[in-house]
């Protein structure tokens, strides 16, 4: 069955060229897909790199929101969300929660009063195996409309060129609204007194299969007490962690989870635009924070609060941020787990 090899040298040469072309085309397509030929592509690595402070990132820590403290508790669902989404988390019941209060800074040692934006990472698990992760912050809207604009804003904020920030603000006028929020909204002296907003739009899918765009928030039950940042500074660089530890030890702290439902015409792809205040808001349950644990030995350190980790009944919308955040958070997680030896574990830690 072996056919006699045909060996005219021209045919041999042509065959080799053809093989080389096929292999080169395959390799080229792969390199293009990998972004190796597209230096301007906004990659997860770029998005993570740009967050690093001038001295380089804090090894072993999250690349942003690096300062934080773990909590555990429950989400008490009142059942009112069940008409919006089939997710089991909205059926009446109490579901375990792991979370993390944090400051929006790449430095785990930043003083509390130097960080304007505070955040809350949340994981709720349900008996059906559903996992819902979310990472929320206290401003009522995001500073910029697109991930590319976020990248440019971060780049400008680290730039020595005084014009860099001005040109980014000029190119992305939505930043001005955020600046107004940052300078006019009172600070508080407690994580327990802050609201936390999901900001990104997601889709809730109901029993009939109808998908509605929503945004969610946690509203504090505790009354906010305003404090000037310099007063907060006087209480020490880590006051917020001490305060929340004592406060939760004294009594569980609560937030009402609200779901705002978009109407047709509301922009879902731009978290810098708040929806009109008259939109339907459904109170779906209460987050109860029952226990605080230092991050080093706490249950939140290992968790990547990736906002695209969603249970059945919730999915991403056309908002471009959750995907970009997911890609960047994964890169941050890859790096910090690889650098785990730099992270100061306390003695007796069970994890290596």
């Amino acid at each position, binding site marked *: 069955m072996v056919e006699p090899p*045909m060996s005219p040298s021209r045919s041999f040469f042509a065959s080799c060229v053809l093989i080389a072309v096929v292999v080169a085309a395959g390799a080229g397509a792969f390199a293009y897909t990998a972004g190796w030929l597209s230096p301007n592509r906004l990659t997860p690595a770029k998005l993570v790199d740009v967050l690093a402070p001038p001295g380089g990132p804090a090894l072993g820590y999250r690349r942003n929101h690096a300062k934080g403290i773990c909590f555990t508790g429950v989400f008490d669902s009142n059942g009112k969300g069940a008409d919006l989404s089939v997710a089991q988390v909205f059926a009446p019941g109490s579901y375990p929660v792991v979370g993390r209060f944090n400051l929006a800074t790449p430095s785990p040692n930043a003083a509390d009063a130097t960080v304007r934006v505070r955040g809350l990472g949340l994981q709720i698990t349900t008996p059906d195996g559903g996992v819902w992760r979310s990472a929320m912050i206290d401003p009522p809207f995001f500073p910029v409309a697109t991930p590319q604009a976020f990248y440019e804003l971060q780049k400008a904020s680290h730039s020595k060129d005084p014009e860099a920030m001005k040109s980014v603000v000029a190119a992305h006028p939505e930043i001005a609204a955020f600046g107004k929020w940052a300078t006019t909204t009172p600070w508080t002296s407690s994580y327990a007194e802050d609201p936390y907003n999901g900001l990104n739009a997601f889709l809730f899918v109901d029993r009939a299969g109808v998908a509605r765009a929503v945004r969610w928030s946690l509203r504090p039950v505790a009354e906010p007490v305003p404090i000037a940042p310099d007063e907060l500074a006087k209480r020490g660089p880590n006051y917020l962690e001490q305060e929340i530890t004592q406060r939760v030890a004294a009594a569980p702290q609560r937030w009402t989870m609200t779901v705002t439902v978009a109407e047709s015409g509301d922009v879902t792809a731009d978290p810098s635009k708040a929806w009109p205040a008259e939109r339907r808001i459904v109170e779906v349950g209460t987050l109860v924070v029952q226990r605080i644990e230092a991050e080093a030995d706490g249950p939140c350190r290992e968790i990547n609060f990736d906002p695209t980790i969603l249970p059945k009944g919730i999915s991403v919308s056309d908002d471009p941020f959750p995907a*970009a955040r997911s890609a960047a958070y994964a890169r941050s997680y*890859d790096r910090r787990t690889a650098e785990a030896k730099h992270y100061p574990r306390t003695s007796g830690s069970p994890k290596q």
Partner: protein
Amino acid sequence: MSRQLTRFTGLQRLLHWLMAVCIVAMLFIGIGMVSTTAPRYVPLLETHKTLGAVILLLALLRLGVRLVRGAPPLPASLPPLMRLGAILSHYALYALMIAMPLIGWAMLSAGDYPIVLYGGIRLPAILPQSDTLHTLLRSAHHWLALAFFALILLHLAAALFHALVRRDGVFEAMSPLPSRRGKH
């Protein structure tokens, strides 16, 4: 002695070409998704996980079929070095087809990520959370993927070399087209 096969069986050829499409798609999806922050990242990741599970199942099936049905012998005219290359590269391809999905699954487990496939199908974690294992598996998944793609290019080049230059029936043994001689 029983009649020697000159081609892989129809089932083996079907599995080969089906998996070829899946694996090439898988490698492109993988390298593409880790370099993008665009909205397609989310569906690409879900497809990658789902396709990985499919490839693992197909690879195990294929290994079983290979062990039962065997393979047509390489032509006697094949130089020893090419014969060795053919044998070693096939072992490596089988190892990667089975190992890569398992490494990906273990890596997600070690990262404490829920593993949710298309249609909401959930896979259990096969490892506890571990920074060390996550790091090891993440690196292995990346470098073995690049090695896998390089090996596939080599496999493709060798297949074309058999088809166009040596014309020794090796390519025809796995060709998706029916035999010209009407056998098999």
